[in-house]
């Protein structure tokens, strides 16, 4: 008797990578079910980017009591504010645990679109400096792919999402297919050549490469510079799965999207050695439903995917599904993030900005590119920008009366420049996600326990970030330069990666070079959990490229009846 399946493919998660899995699979003719734990999002109703402070009861400060009660972890994210908080989870409904000495900020959204709704939109290709890093210094396992494997898929993604940026010709930060770059501000443009000159051309400041349109593209409009992308975009100018990939998937007629669907377990057929489907809990009715499919893509986000696999243990995989290697849940990483510097510029009082640029500048990695730094392995990039202080300064500036008021209206204040480092942390077996033996979420699904700690390597890197950024500001003529060496806890960069890493052999990791589980051939994992190292670049575009690549491979393999 022939097997019957509800769908050709099931995709768990509708965010950054899940939207791409849906698009690529449906466009190849696969009837695809996308399961999303959160509720639906309608741009016409739910986006709030144009809500002005005076329309908010707390003028942007947020309802502190409600936020501290319901979202005490999520409010650590700048985007979880008075109106944007609705795109973040309720921490009481979605608990996780950590050791008391290892805080981890797990910042996340559960809705159609996931975190692609309020992501930072910065997109940087990785290079072979990144894919070779583990092999070279022995931390973590060697990646099973190199830049040439992924480069065409970066291009494929860039063509669809639309990326604005400037070509720089840097080997460590490969150029991509870019729309017109956004402008630098007056002091950024002034600082770039001064920094280049002061550091032998090694420190390159470029305009942020950002998944925001500067030209109309595929029915989405160029940015209108309101500046609040993390709250939505009615003109669909920044990339999110709601704005772009899910509509493309829907247009094929092959997409079924089911919100309010928490996947509790991947069902495993031990006889065939395949994933059979998933067990879903409807988060509104709490009814359990099973869906079956020929192939399964997990795109639930790094920690959710690991949690799902650990919760899907069975007789054959007592330590978690697809975990014959014993590496599932291990080597969880984030970018070490927080240190940097800021200063003010005495000049350019005759220049101002017009419009709110939802983007900053990027300083490409310069440490451990050509020579080895004595204090740490790997490297970091900076993200920041410059603007004028505006009326904000009146809150701490002495003075009162008519002239005080008029100066806040007419004088835009000093130019300030601040930048923060994003560092590559080392993959470590000890940094892991397990299942908490007691705590369950609102729907009875066992919760994740996260144990991730920074090491001396990350701490040494943070010190260097503060120092090197201050040097650059001083070289560019800034005054009152302050260094900040404080680092955030793991998770805070919201670039959590690893836990189901790709590997060259089935002994070293969970996934092969096609993001296919070594142990379960029809199971693909293409969210952040697949990552074997972090590089220092923002990871989303790499998830998207790996997803498109894996989906193409899976569809081809299905045609050949290999799955």
């Amino acid at each position, binding site marked *: 008797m022939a097997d019957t399946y509800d769908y050709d493919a099931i995709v768990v998660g509708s965010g950054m990578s899940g939207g791409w899995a849906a698009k690529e699979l449906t466009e190849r003719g696969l009837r695809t079910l996308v399961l999303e734990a959160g509720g639906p999002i309608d741009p016409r109703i739910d986006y709030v980017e144009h809500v002005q402070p*005076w329309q908010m009861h707390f*003028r942007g*400060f947020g309802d502190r009591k409600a936020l501290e009660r319901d979202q005490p972890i999520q409010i650590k994210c700048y985007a979880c504010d008075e109106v944007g908080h609705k795109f973040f989870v309720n921490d009481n409904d979605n608990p996780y645990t950590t050791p008391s000495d290892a805080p981890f900020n797990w910042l996340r959204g559960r809705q159609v679109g996931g975190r692609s709704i309020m992501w930072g939109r910065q997109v940087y290709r990785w290079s072979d400096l990144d894919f070779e890093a583990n092999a070279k210094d022995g931390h973590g396992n060697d990646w099973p792919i190199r830049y040439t494997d992924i480069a065409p898929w970066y291009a494929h993604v860039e063509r669809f999402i639309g990326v604005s940026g400037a070509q720089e010709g840097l080997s460590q930060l490969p150029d991509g297919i870019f729309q017109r770059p956004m402008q630098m501000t007056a002091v950024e443009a002034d600082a770039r050549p001064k920094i280049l000159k002061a550091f032998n051309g090694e420190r390159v400041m470029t305009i942020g490469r950002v998944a925001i349109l500067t030209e109309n593209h595929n029915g989405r409009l160029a940015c209108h510079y309101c500046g609040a992308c993390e709250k939505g975009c009615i003109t669909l100018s920044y990339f999110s799965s709601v704005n772009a990939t899910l509509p493309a998937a829907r247009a094929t007629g092959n997409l079924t999207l089911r919100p309010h669907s928490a996947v509790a377990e991947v069902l495993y057929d031990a006889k065939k050695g395949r994933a059979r489907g998933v067990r879903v809990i409807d988060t509104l009715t709490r009814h359990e439903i099973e869906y079956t499919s020929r192939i399964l893509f997990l795109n639930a986000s790094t920690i959710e995917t690991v949690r799902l696999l650990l919760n899907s243990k069975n007789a054959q995989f007592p330590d978690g599904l697809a975990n014959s290697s014993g590496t599932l849940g291990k080597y969880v990483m984030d970018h070490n993030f927080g240190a940097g510097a800021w200063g003010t510029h005495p000049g350019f009082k005759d220049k*101002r*900005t017009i419009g709110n640029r939802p983007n900053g500048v990027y300083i490409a990695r310069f440490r451990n590119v050509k020579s080895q730094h004595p204090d740490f392995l790997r490297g970091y990039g900076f993200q920041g920008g410059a603007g004028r202080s505006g009326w904000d300064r009146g809150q701490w500036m002495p003075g009162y009366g008519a002239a005080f*008021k*008029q100066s806040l209206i007419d004088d835009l204040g000093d130019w300030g420049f601040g930048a923060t480092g994003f560092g590559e942390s080392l993959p470590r077996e000890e940094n892991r996600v397990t299942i908490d033996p007691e705590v369950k979420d609102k729907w009875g699904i066992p919760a994740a326990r996260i144990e991730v700690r920074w090491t001396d390597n990350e701490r040494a890197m943070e010190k260097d970030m503060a120092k090197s950024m201050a040097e650059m500001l001083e070289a560019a003529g800034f005054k009152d330069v302050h260094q900040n060496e404080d680092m955030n806890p793991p998770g805070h960069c919201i670039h959590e990666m690893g836990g189901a890493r790709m590997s060259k052999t089935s002994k070293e990791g969970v996934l092969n070079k096609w993001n296919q589980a070594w142990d379960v051939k029809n199971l693909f994992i293409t969210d952040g959990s697949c990552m074997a190292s972090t590089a220092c670049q923002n990871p989303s575009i790499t998830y998207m490229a790996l997803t498109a690549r894996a989906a193409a491979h899976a569809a081809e393999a299905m045609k050949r009846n290999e799955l």
Partner: protein
Amino acid sequence: MERRDLLRALASAAALSVLPNEKALAAWSRLATGTATTNGLSDAQMALVRAMADTIIPRTDTPSATDVGVHRFVEVIVSEYAKDEDRTKFLAGLDAIDARARTESSAVFAELSPEARGKMIESLESGSRDVDPAQTYWRLKGLVVHGYFTSEPVMKDVLKVVVMPGKFEGAAPVAIKKRPSDVKVPPSGQEAHAHG
């Protein structure tokens, strides 16, 4: 009693029903004597906030702080946003500002002449910002400035904020506006002492 105060008293009556009796009695007596309200500002504290707000941001050819309702924003923050300990400290700080005004000028801040108000602010701004009442003053000033520049009339008519600018320019020229208000000395003598 204003309607707002009535509503607040009614709300507090509901809340008081779950408090232990002793605390409830003490709270009722404070309400009854008018020495303190519930979570908000007393009339005296509100008068101080209004006077301070309009001394920091007076009416010129553009609205004053209270013209755009900054005092109501301050009350929202004090009564609905602030943590209990911060509210207590802030209200005590306001009382301390008035106490200092009484000591130095025999009147509460709101009843001082513009010159005396200015002198008081200069004195509050001249010392450490970390001790009260200066700490409360700086907290209030921050709320006044934030509340003013995030108000609808100021964002729309004074700052002329464009919600969807449609372009970004990183190095546009600053247009120097010459308006009568730039040179006019306010008749109240409230010259600014901005040197930040």
